């Protein structure tokens, strides 16, 4: 089955069995191995990519359902020479140990900050009708879909808080 999509700004074509997930298409067909497979069941966030401007779990989506979509992976956010602001902050704050969850964390955080900017409430927003504040609690809740086996959470939150425009309270 043929799927045409844009990945990191480039037009790509995938010819694959319809069973192929977006995650496997990225890793195996397009050789973009930055996106990781942790659980393959939506439970860890390692496979997070940004599709149509939204963060999603690429393991729970079929590649053929993304025909015409724009997908951004960690490779599209920055390169070793030109890190994105969040990538750079993760390095500076030691936001990882083994690094396996990191591409998913950074893709997730990149899109999460836009959700916060757009005023989306979260489970910890005291009044869902009001605009959310930028707090450690808000960032942690919004990032709960990204697990880190190495438990680098405090430093991950520090890195995100810095980029979100304020130091840790």
């Amino acid at each position, binding site marked *: 089955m043929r799927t045409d999509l844009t990945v990191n700004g480039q037009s790509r074509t995938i010819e694959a069995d319809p069973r192929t997930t977006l995650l496997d298409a990225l890793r195996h067909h397009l050789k973009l191995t930055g996106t990781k497979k942790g659980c393959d069941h939506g439970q860890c966030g390692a496979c997070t990519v940004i599709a149509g401007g939204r963060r999603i779990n690429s393991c729970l989506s079929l590649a053929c359902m993304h025909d015409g979509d724009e997908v951004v992976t960690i490779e599209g956010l920055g390169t070793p020479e030109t890190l994105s602001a969040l990538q750079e902050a993760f390095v500076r704050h030691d936001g990882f140990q083994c690094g396996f969850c990191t591409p998913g964390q950074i893709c*997730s955080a990149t899109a999460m900050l836009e959700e916060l900017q757009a005023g989306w409430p979260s489970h910890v927003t005291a009044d869902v009708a009001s605009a959310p504040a930028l707090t450690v609690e808000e960032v942690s809740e919004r990032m709960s879909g990204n697990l880190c086996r190495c438990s680098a959470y405090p430093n991950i939150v520090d890195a995100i808080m810095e980029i979100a425009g304020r130091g840790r309270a």
Partner: protein
Amino acid sequence: MRPFEFTRAESAADAMRLAGDGATIIAGGTNLLDLMKLEVMAPQALVDINRLDLGDIDEAEGGGLRIGALVRNSDLAADRRVRDAYPMLAEALLAGASGQLRNKATTGGNLLQRTRCYYYYDTAMPCNKREPGSGCQAIGGITRLHALFGASEHCIATHPSDMAVALRALDARVEIQSQDGVTRMLPLGDFYRLPGDTPHIETVLVPGDLITAVLLPAPAGARQTYRKVRDRASYAFALVSVAGVLDVEDGRIVRPALAFGGVGHMPWRNPEVEALLEGEAPSVDLFAEAAARLVAEAEPQGGNAFKIPLLRRTLQAVLRELTEA
């Protein structure tokens, strides 16, 4: 995953025809693909409905909202009208899954997500829901997640949705289009079925039916809340949850509506509990009486007996919260 034929529906008629011929509808895919990977579900054909025009939230007659079946859980929770007039719905959505999953999960798919019963997920185990007639391994097994109300000797599973619990308390109706062109509107209590001796049939939908929307009536009360109790603070299913809406007029509770999650094969409601509260002055004793009435008919299964005090206390906490000045 078993092989399947994949078709993208270009129209609702297209989707209903293919579904009527045996294809399984795929929306966000976050539940279906999970189950297909485990081969708990093995459809021979999928029909992708994502390009259908079902993604809007519109104002409905009488001051309510019509939520398209393809509205994503994240968009629904962020909608200004929902946040202002149906805050418990936003709260329930935001208490479910993760940011990534909510960006994919749809209103229709969320209603139809399958149980998280461990035995349903384990294809090595008998399960009447997965394989009708094979038996229920949960009964007498590990029942931490299982139902207190409405279970049968064939299945004691719970419905895992948070959104559906809020919708049940809000008296929402599901809009269903069928192949013969008829549109039905069903309250959640009539849409879902109890397990009985056919636990594999969870709703009144028949092949070829398409959920097109969920209709919310004008908000019943200003005081609303959704409280979810779970094993960890985020990204976990409910052990029990309570969705509550009411008003207080002249020091009396009016029009209370309460729905309970994690305790039944469908989001649970008990009219007797609501009747007991109607017109009464809020008090600790009244709340205790309501909670006792609710759990009076609970049938614990062993490992889920802890849900009885948990549910009782959660309801009391919700009633206190809703009636505080």
